[in-house]
């Protein structure tokens, strides 16, 4: 695609597939961070990242299909994410108080 054609396309508006690609990238980054990082705060942020990647897909599809339900779902996710952030951060604070660590691999009391 030559720059001229790309500019023309942008002029019509960014295509939906680009949004979806960005969403996929963001989600993958979130998954990778969740699996690979050991700091609970980072893991927590990765979860937020995945949620928002999904939100982006919802919005993109809602725009594509001209339907409002995608927006609705996004609001739901944001509400849940806010609640989760409140509870999750409280848990993290308590865990840190009790164990003096934020290393997720050391928090495995529920094994076997």
């Amino acid at each position, binding site marked *: 695609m030559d720059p001229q054609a790309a500019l023309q396309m942008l002029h019509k508006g960014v295509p939906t597939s680009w949004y979806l690609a960005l969403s996929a990238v963001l989600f993958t980054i979130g*998954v990778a961070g*969740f*699996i*690979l990082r*050991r700091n609970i705060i980072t*893991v927590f942020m990765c979860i937020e990242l995945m949620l928002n990647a999904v939100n982006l897909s919802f919005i993109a599809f809602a725009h594509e299909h001209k339907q409002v339900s995608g927006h609705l779902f996004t609001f739901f996710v944001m509400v849940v994410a806010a609640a989760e952030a409140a509870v999750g951060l409280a848990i993290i604070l308590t865990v840190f108080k009790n164990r003096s660590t934020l290393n*997720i*691999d050391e*928090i*495995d*009391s*529920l*094994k*076997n």
Partner: protein
Amino acid sequence: MQNLWLIPALPFIGFLINGILGRKLSKAVVSSIAVLSVVLSFGLVVSVGLSSDWGANPIHQHYFTWIQSGGVNIGWDFMVDKLTMIMLMVVTGIGSLIHIYATGYMAHEEGYYRFFAYLNLFMFFMLNLVLGANYLLLFVGWEGVGLCSYLLIGFYFVKKSATTAGNKAFIVNRIGDFGFSLAMFLIFMTFGSLDFGKVFAAAPGKPAETLTAIALLMLLGATGKSAQIPLYVWLPDAMEGPTPVSALIHAATMVTAGVYMCSRSAAIFLKAPIAMDTVAIVGLATAVFAATIGLTQYDIKKVFAYSTVSQLGYMFLGVGVGAFSAGVWHLMTHAFFKALLFMGAGSVIHACGGEQDMRQMGGLKKYTPWTCGVLACASLAIAGVPGTSGFFSKDAILTAAYAHAPWMFWVGVVTAGMTAFYVWRAFWMTFWGEYRGGHASAAAGHGHDAHAHADNHAHADHHGHDDHAHGGQAHGGHGAHGTPHESPWSMLGPLVVLAFLSLAGGFLFNIPKFLESMFPLHEEVANEQMLMGISIAAGLIGIAVSYFLYVVSPEVPARIAGALGGIYTLVYNKYFVDELYDATIVQPLVEGSTAVLWHGLDQGVIDGAVNGAGSGSRSIGGVLKHLQSGNIRTYATWVVVGSVILLVAMGLNGGMVR
């Protein structure tokens, strides 16, 4: 119209009162309830007998339908015909006498009320057995008397040998009952009914093979209940029970149930000649076999027990050769004299303070003249001395046997000689000579046990004493082995009545004549006088030989025993039949069950399956538990892997379905 149901109901009421309340009642009340219930039922039997015209049709009363299921219709019906009448008279008459006797004999025993409750329960079942108008009711009584027999043999249940003997009787009888059950099934299959009337009316039209099978299976049942070869082994051991029980159940009534059943089923047996021959041969073999054992025993009750087995063999011989009425006649006279022998033996044992070994007796004639007198009557009767009851019935059987097959007659005559010999041997050993007991200062049981061991026959059932130690408290504190003493009149009264019946029963009750309408009389045998003479001679020779051996020269028997050597040992130990059964049936069963059923099936298969399921789950869980590492990142990895697998699978299936 008599209410037949009252006849068994009265003893049952007695059983309920004594069984439930007996512990709180005094002995006088318990015994009067028990005796009264049986005597009243005897009175009812007599009134039924007197009021009946004995026409062709038996008295038949239907009370209610017991089982109604498909084609099975079994009513609670009682029936009285002439055969039933004889059985009813024997059961309630002898039963009453024995109940009275038992009030004296058991006076100082523990569990007095329990004894009489069982005894009344026995009367109930026995009357049910003889009154029942179909095979199932007969079977109810049949099983019930077996239960009571078990309970009463094991009456002294603190004694190991008594409980073992009870178990033995019960288990051996199961084998016979198995045969009887099969016979009933076969009867139902063939006739579609268990009612005597329908079955016997239809019997002549059925194939002989089926009837033979039914008759043989019935015979198996009869060999169990009536102690015939091969199932006779329980009866000698049953002498562990109190002596009135031996007299009532194991001599006079229950053990004759097999003879009754075969006579009742005459219509079937008559159409099955092979079965008839089998009955005759089994009876004859048992008669000889048991008589030879009786020759050598020293325990007075054991002698009479083998005598019972032998005499039951006679009855089966009579039934087997077609002389049903002779068999039933012998059943009745045998009930008289054998009950008397046992109760006399009980009186002797009572006199000697619990001693049962005849070598510890002797000379009792002067201590217990009444017992001696009545036992003499019984011994004359069983020896078949002319004029006594035993003579008539035995002669009737032997004559019929001669008409059937002369060799059976000769074997029967030899048996009659042996019978006379061993009964009179017991008589001489008990009442003649010098009193041989009392020398031991030790307690009765102890002294005897030592004796038994010294004689090197410490077989369990040689200690067959019923722990009868009333000597002590009751009769003025003389030691158990002190001077023998005569029994109280509550015991002697029934003995005297029975002694009269033993002597005169043959004249008084001409059973073959009475039963002629049911069982046709046998055709006359040509030289009947001679046959009678031979059987009389056999009995008299038996008595004479025993007199010579045990009174004139008492040292001879030991010499004869020594001369016979191995044969004597064999007979003395009852042909080792118990040991043979133990080695061929009991031990293989026990060991097979232990190895296969217990260790193999129960511990191996069943426990193995249960434990295997448990330990299998544990080991699988042991592997799976490592999945739950507690590490969140591992969980997330699993989720990712799962999602990838799902996505790949969807992709391979052509994407999302619209």
